């Protein structure tokens, strides 16, 4: 009976057509037996997606400026600060500003270190010693970070003469940038234009803040006085001793 069982199994054979179809399938599947074993890349897709998300998310978080610090003497520069209080961009808005920006090594430093480095820069201290005016604007979205930075900068510049700190909303800054001005210069330009509509951007671009202030004083026939309001100059709360000497 075992033999009969064996014989019964023996009669079951793979059909030639089945073998040929299998050979054809394998030939096709292996690209004529030339294809290297493929790495299962599809299994890596979720990991790659997560990696890219973390990379781009991290990049976006780090390299998106949330606050800008506009510093104007005659050199006009603007620092882009991210949500981690690090300087991620330094841009000069005129020739002097570009020269100053190039001489600074403040990228990726905290904004306090960056502002201190600018305040102690030889060219800037020379200008301030020469009774020039410095305005430092914190431009943000009226959030906690902007308030903190403004407060820090005010304390940083507490001992500086002729230094003014102010806050501005980031929406207003777009117009300034469209005109190729830093926000500090733009505010001065707007104030000056109110007194003399003939004034042009080109005229004030390379003027120092002291020259602009003096011009404003002469046009208005008044000595340097502060204008009120949220974005007016000189909310430096005692930082402008030199200007009023």
């Amino acid at each position, binding site marked *: 009976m075992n033999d009969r*069982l064996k014989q019964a199994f023996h009669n079951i054979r793979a059909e030639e057509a089945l073998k040929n179809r299998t*050979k054809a399938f394998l030939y096709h599947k292996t690209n004529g037996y030339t294809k290297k*074993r493929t790495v299962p890349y599809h299994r890596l897709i979720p990991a790659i997606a997560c990696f890219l998300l973390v990379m781009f998310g991290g990049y976006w978080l780090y390299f998106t400026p949330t606050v800008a610090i506009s510093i104007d003497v005659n050199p006009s520069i603007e620092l882009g600060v991210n949500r981690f209080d690090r300087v991620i961009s330094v841009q000069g808005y005129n020739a002097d500003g570009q020269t100053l920006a190039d001489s600074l090594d403040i990228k990726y430093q905290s904004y306090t270190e960056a502002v201190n480095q600018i305040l102690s820069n030889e060219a800037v201290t020379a200008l301030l010693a020469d009774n020039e005016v410095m305005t430092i604007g914190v431009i943000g979205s009226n959030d906690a970070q902007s308030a903190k930075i403004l407060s820090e900068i005010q304390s940083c510049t507490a001992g500086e003469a002729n230094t003014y700190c102010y806050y501005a909303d980031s929406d207003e800054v777009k117009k300034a940038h469209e005109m190729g001005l830093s926000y500090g210069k733009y505010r001065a330009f707007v104030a000056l234009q109110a007194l003399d509509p003939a004034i042009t951007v080109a005229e004030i671009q390379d003027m120092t803040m002291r020259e602009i202030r003096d011009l404003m004083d002469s046009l208005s026939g008044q000595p340097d006085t502060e204008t009120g309001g949220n974005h007016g100059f000189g909310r430096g709360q005692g930082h402008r001793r030199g200007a009023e000497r």
Partner: protein
Amino acid sequence: MRSEQEVNRAIEQYADMVRRLCMIHLKNDADTEDIFQTVFLKYVLHTGSFETEEHEKAWLIRVTINACKDLLKSVFYRRTVSMDEIPALPAEMPPEEKDILEAVLSLPQKYKDVVYLHFYEAYTAPQISRLLKKNVNTVYTLLTRSKQLLREKLGGDGYE
């Protein structure tokens, strides 16, 4: 990747064995063709070397049985094929042999592999236990019980 000659040699050498294993697990030709493609594609891509022909044969038996079990476990297969159905056997097969195979195919699934491996491939219980990764005593029990069942179904006493 293995060469075409090597793969064609394996197909010629082992296709009948794979076909028989498919017969005792599966119900139709389309599934058998799927298993052929799965098993021999694995063979093509298998990078390890076989020490002996016996080693290669055992590897193919294991891969075929596992592929059949995977197919049977698939939800789609469970919903579309009746598990009680017995596959059609070749029409030209002598009636007595057909009866024997039908008796084997009507056995519960757990007996079929050991019956085929023992009666046709002449593997011993310890060899089957290694092949199927089952306890050797379990294999002895399955063999004894399958002999009894076949004897009952076929009414003979020659299954020793």
